[in-house]
């Protein structure tokens, strides 16, 4: 009989040696892969230990209930012994509302809260175009946010019911006809303005009617006199409307159908309300202006090109703080005496210009990255200039520029703290300073910075994550 030996089954695989698996392997590869890396790792650990050892007691001894810094110190000394340090978050507990709303009257807090919620509703069709599931999540989240915060802010029942009904209605709309939600996005700026500043409801409606007028003039004049003259005529008509008819018409309507919210003056705005108003408006308006400037700079038309280059180079050439001082001081000199040109509006306009100039260059980078063939292909298809830009060039150029555009946005949002230098109450310096001017909290140092920094981080990190998601979604090159 032919004897031979053969296995009938495989041996189970052995575990890799201890140095080649699990935490040990990971540490060998990542922390101690060479003598230099080992030293750096140890130094890093020592630094982390020193930081934690120095700050941990401060965090652990946090005090939440006190009426002044002195009381905080007494409580820390009592609980942790003489000489111990501790954070005094009681200051945040007492003054959080000034960090968030500035001097906005407490019984009206529901208005900025609602405006923030609706901001995300308005953004939903832009952020998640055509993705019903994501939109449903976002709008559901907003509904929950509004119900909770509006209840806490003791919203009047009518406003509460209206707000919730509006959000639920829009959620339903987003599931049935997501595209229609863009109409809400279009009217949102006027709605937001009315919610935040109050006054008669007719003022924003009549102002928006100017845009309708622009469109109508354009629509009916275009076939007769051509596109460009029609656009010009539309703009002239709208400007005339805003200059001469807006006031009387809204006054008339207010007389006939009085309806409005309590007017809130700009000097009551402060904290993150101010930062977000300036930041979001700046972001929303700087992107289209930036795109136009970038296209203008690439244009063959001499005047358009010169104006765009001049604007971009001038605005990029001066620091933001100079523009803010211009907004705050010089404009007052140039305008006729007695003109009351809202300071927040002045600041928003100049911040928008500043961001637009930077964005223009970012987008120009994206345009330059496109191969020439794309432009030629658009021409070969017989598309006119605007169609070619809209359908072929810009979608690709903007996609390439997403990381840089979002960087500019994040930078713009953080730069809103600079408005402190023109006397506005930004959260970082303005509010912190008035809190410290209170004798109860004088001498407090890290707590306001940490609180404000944490909120800024959450917002900026959110923007950054969204841009990564967007890049992934739009990735088509299978690299």
């Amino acid at each position, binding site marked *: 009989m032919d004897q031979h030996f053969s296995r009938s089954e495989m041996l189970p695989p052995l575990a890799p040696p201890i140095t080649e698996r699990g935490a040990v392997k990971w540490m060998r590869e990542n922390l101690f892969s060479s003598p230099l890396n080992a030293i750096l790792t140890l130094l890093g650990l020592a630094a982390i230990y020193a930081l934690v050892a120095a700050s941990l007691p401060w965090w652990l001894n946090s005090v939440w209930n006190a009426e002044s810094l002195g009381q905080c110190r007494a409580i820390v000394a009592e609980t942790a012994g003489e000489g111990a340090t501790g954070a005094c978050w009681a200051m945040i507990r007492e003054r959080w509302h000034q960090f968030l709303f500035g001097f906005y009257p407490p019984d009206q807090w529901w208005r900025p809260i609602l405006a923030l919620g609706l901001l995300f509703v308005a953004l939903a069709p832009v952020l998640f175009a055509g993705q019903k599931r994501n939109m449903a999540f976002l709008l559901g989240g907003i509904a929950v946010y509004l119900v909770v915060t509006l209840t806490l802010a003791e919203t009047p029942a009518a406003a509460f019911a209206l707000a919730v009904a509006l959000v639920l209605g829009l959620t339903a709309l987003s599931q049935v006809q997501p595209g229609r939600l863009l109409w809400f996005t279009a009217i949102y700026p006027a709605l937001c303005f009315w919610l935040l500043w109050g006054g008669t409801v007719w003022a924003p409606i009549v102002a928006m009617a100017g845009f309708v007028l622009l469109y109508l003039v354009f629509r009916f004049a275009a076939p007769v006199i051509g596109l460009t003259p029609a656009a010009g005529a539309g703009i002239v008509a709208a400007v005339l409307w805003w200059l001469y008819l807006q006031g009387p018409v809204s006054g008339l309507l207010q007389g006939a159908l009085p309806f409005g919210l309590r007017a809130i003056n700009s000097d009551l705005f402060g904290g993150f309300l101010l930062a977000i108003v300036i930041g979001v408006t700046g972001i929303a308006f700087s992107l289209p202006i930036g795109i136009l400037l970038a296209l203008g700079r690439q244009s063959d038309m001499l005047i358009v090109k010169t104006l765009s280059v001049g604007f971009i180079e001038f605005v990029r050439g001066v620091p933001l703080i100079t523009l803010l001082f211009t907004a705050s001081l010089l404009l007052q*000199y140039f305008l006729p*005496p007695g003109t009351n040109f809202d300071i927040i509006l002045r600041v928003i306009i100049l911040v928008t210009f500043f961001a637009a100039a930077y964005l223009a260059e970012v987008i120009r980078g994206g345009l330059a990255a496109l191969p020439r063939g794309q432009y030629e292909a658009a021409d070969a298809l017989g598309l006119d200039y605007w169609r070619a830009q809209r359908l072929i060039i810009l979608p690709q150029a903007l996609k390439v520029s997403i990381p840089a555009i979002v960087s500019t946005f994040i930078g713009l949002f953080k730069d809103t703290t600079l408005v402190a230098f023109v006397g*506005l109450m930004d959260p970082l310096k303005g509010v912190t300073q008035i809190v*410290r*001017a209170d004798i109860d909290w004088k001498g407090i140092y890290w707590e306001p910075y940490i609180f404000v920094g944490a909120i800024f981080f959450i917002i900026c990190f959110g923007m950054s994550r969204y841009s990564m998601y967007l890049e992934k979604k739009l990735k088509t090159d299978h690299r």
Partner: protein
Amino acid sequence: MKKTVFFGALAASTLVAGLAGAGTLDDVKARGELICGSNTGLTGFGAPDASGNWTGFDVDLCRAIAAAVLGDPTKVKFLPTTGETRFTALQSGEVDVLVRNSTWSFSRDSELALDFVAVNYYDGQGFMVKKDLGVSSAKELDGATVCIQTGTTTELNLADFFKQNNISYQPVTVADDSEAQRQYLAGACDAYTTDASGLAASRATMPDADTHIILPEIISKEPLGPAVRHGDNQWGDVVRWTFFALLVAEEKGVTSANVEEVATSTTDEEVKRLLGVSGEMGAKMGLDNDAFKRAIAAVGNYGEVYARNIGEGTTINLARGLNALWTQGGLQYAPPFR
């Protein structure tokens, strides 16, 4: 400095253009609101509290002016101004009056075309040191490190003082008061210098206030007072005499509590004129005759304003010192009310 000249010239030229318009007094009356340029937040002198109401020593003067002109101390809008924007805000007409611990100096009065109409607080630059440093006079600070805010007149005063006394120092520059306090407490500097009122406020809130002393030397004159635009004399008079009314009231013992009673019972002719009982004093500057009575009723006399905001008994605990009435050895002296 050049920038200041430029803004000053710009301001002066627009002022000439603006003068053709109505005076500030008429503007304020027409608007029904006084716009007061205030500090962005200075302990004891002007800052909003947790509910957004402005309080403080300078703030009370604004309220007194509003009470005198408009009859209501709440009809004031406080516009926070920074060190950079304060004078242009006044010149461009964004604020009616600047009550913001600004030092009256030659160049501000002439070059910037401002009018400082009174001095509501006499301040001066001082030093704070730790007790265990063993120093009892600023002249012993040879070789010391000194915490100092950059870009202020205090920086120049400090250099002058040490140069005059032929001693050396090492400046540690800081951006603002809170940072200075932190650096000083952390031991980054031996001495901290700023206005004496600021030192007192800082010391009052330090964890171990008793271990710090404020040295006796005051090395500069800092007369702080309300400023108005150059050339609008009627408005300047209103602000000046509203302040003087508070001083006279203290001198004559008129307080917010007894003002009504004094007005009916007094036999003192000056008090009668002050409270509008006789003499038509208010009408002479375009106000109601009881304008100053309203101001006193709203905020109290100078002594009350001082005691409530920064005086002994408050946490800041500033003695009257130079700010006592002239009858009590201080500098606060109002011209006769006649």
